[in-house]
């Protein structure tokens, strides 16, 4: 009883509030809970194993139905259009699954990258507990959901039960104050934080981002920050919903009513609060072969590159493409450099098309592909060969991530990628 009083007395993190509702009882960091899932998302890479697992769980049931077809979202984005017979077979299997189960929230090869499509199509609202069988599911923290990546077997259990076990995580709070400088963006912020705490700095914990800089960012840029929580081991990357969130959600879910209590209380317990003033921060770059190998851009300026990729769930939105096009300012891609631009979704692609960005990129000599994960997953097209150097706006630069294990991948903002594309080497976007 005393415990319940303490828990209810206004000292919870946003994460503890979401789990308390989803578990149907007050809970706090460290508790193991069986929680109700609000949305479960799977895609063409991890989906087939999840479906197999689901039918394995249900093998003795006469009625082999998922717990709630309305709460499941299935998308194809990693290998689209099918780039191999194996991929085509995986797609066939998943199409049959959504058909058999009556899952209407299904996006075939044309809609875009899962982490863009989920919020964009209104499948996520603040306060939800969302799981996705993809590690960057943490992206939806940008709109105040607790969203986390799980594996295929977890997804199989979620399909069957609508519940999963969790350890309610402690929260690592990032207080990011100041005002970002010219041509410095949310990607630079998150790279800075990851470089600071390291690849396991938030392991088993929820990240929560706040402060002046985070509040000033629009939802699109917040998604970049939440998306990469996993790169420091985080289980989620939550940002307190505000008016910007409300506007974003209302355009998609008209009946949405904001809950202003969906925030961490004054007395909430954090595992640590890390404070930053990033007003003076220059653009940041993650160097091969780890995302936490982050430097100020002047340390790598002039490094020759073979390929630039602008896209992915991290930085493939219209706003990212606009920034890139503005930095390029009509100048062509440098000789010897391949530039690949992939809008994160069909919606973002259409916006770019209408704004003339696609034409600008193509006139500059870039290749603009239909929405998909592209080179980021390293299994489809746009791969790097041995010895080649790539600069990417995506989220991972592990050895072999974008093709050959002997290739080198640098990560930066769309502005840094665009400036580097026109110069042929890693270039500070403030200098072009």
């Amino acid at each position, binding site marked *: 009883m005393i415990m319940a009083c303490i828990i209810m007395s206004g000292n919870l993190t946003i994460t503890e509030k979401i789990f308390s509702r989803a578990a149907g009882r007050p809970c706090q960091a460290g508790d193991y809970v069986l929680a109700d899932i609000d949305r479960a998302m799977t895609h063409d890479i991890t989906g087939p194993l999840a479906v*197999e697992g689901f039918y394995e769980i249900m093998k003795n049931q006469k009625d082999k139905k998922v717990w709630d077809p309305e709460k499941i979202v299935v998308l194809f984005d990693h290998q689209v259009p099918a780039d191999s017979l194996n991929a085509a077979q995986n797609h066939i299997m998943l199409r049959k699954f959504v058909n058999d189960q009556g899952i209407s929230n299904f996006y075939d090869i044309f809609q875009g990258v899962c982490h863009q499509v989920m919020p964009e199509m209104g499948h996520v609202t603040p306060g939800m507990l969302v799981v996705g069988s993809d590690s960057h599911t943490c992206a939806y923290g940008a709109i105040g959901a607790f969203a986390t990546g799980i594996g295929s077997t977890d997804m199989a259990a979620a399909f069957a039960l609508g519940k999963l076990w969790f*350890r309610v995580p402690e929260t690592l709070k990032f207080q990011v104050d100041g005002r970002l400088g010219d041509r410095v963006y949310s990607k630079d912020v998150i790279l800075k934080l990851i470089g600071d705490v390291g690849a396991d700095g938030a*392991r088993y914990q929820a990240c929560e981002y706040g402060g002046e800089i985070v509040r000033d960012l629009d939802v699109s840029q917040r998604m970049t920050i939440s998306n990469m929580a996993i790169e420091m081991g985080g289980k989620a990357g939550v940002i307190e919903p505000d008016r910007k969130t409300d506007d974003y959600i209302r355009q998609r879910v008209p009946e949405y009513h904001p809950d202003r209590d969906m925030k961490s209380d004054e007395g909430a317990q954090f595992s640590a609060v890390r404070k930053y003033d990033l007003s003076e921060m220059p653009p940041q770059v993650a160097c091969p072969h780890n995302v936490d190998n982050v430097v100020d851009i002047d340390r790598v300026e002039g490094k020759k590159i073979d390929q630039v990729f602008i896209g992915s769930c991290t930085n493939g939105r219209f706003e990212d493409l606009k920034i890139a096009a503005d930095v390029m300012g009509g100048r062509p891609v440098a000789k010897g450099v391949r530039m690949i631009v992939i809008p994160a979704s069909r919606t973002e692609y259409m916006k770019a098309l209408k704004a003339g960005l696609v034409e600008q990129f193509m006139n500059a000599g870039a290749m603009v592909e239909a929405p998909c994960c592209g080179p980021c997953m*390293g299994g489809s097209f746009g791969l790097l060969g041995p010895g080649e150097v790539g600069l990417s706006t995506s989220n*991972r630069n592990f050895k072999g991530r974008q093709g050959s294990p002997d290739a080198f991948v640098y990560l930066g903002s769309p502005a840094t990628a665009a400036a580097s594309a026109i110069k042929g080497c890693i270039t500070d976007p403030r200098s072009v």
Partner: protein
Amino acid sequence: MAGRETLPGRVWKFGDDVDTDAIIPGRFLILNRPEELAKHAFEGVRPEFKDQVKPGDIIVAGENFGCGSSREHAPLALKGAGVRCVIAKSFARIFFRNSINIGVTLLECPDTDRIAEGDVLEIDEAQGIITNQTKNEIYRAKPLPEFLMDIVRSGGLIDFARKMVERMSREKTREKGREAE
């Protein structure tokens, strides 16, 4: 089972932050079978692994083993290769869940710096005791939380979930029966 628990295994030693792209590169994710995936395990970073790994071998690493993607193909590839268990100072969260869920044994142990490539270890999973036969040393691993032991004891998450579904469907039938009365 009893025999398996005491069989010694040979160590493959890795460092910190071994990521899932290192365990199984993205281009092989179109494969779903453990034995197929095993043919490409660590292909980019330890090309000799896939040919030389023997059933019962043990992977030993530093901090944050399995970081990166949520691909279950990573623990599946290790399972397919016959890897007996992974011992690390710490594991990335999703890899940890996935391994428990599919029945790959993980042991969290702070002393992995003392273990070298090629050492022969004997593992007592139940007690969390690791015996290094090569160096004649003994290390202790952290036991799993009780909640997870339930899943392990059920034989993995699939069996655990199946029991739950069956219990739920029995309860539903009983409720319907009561309503009919």
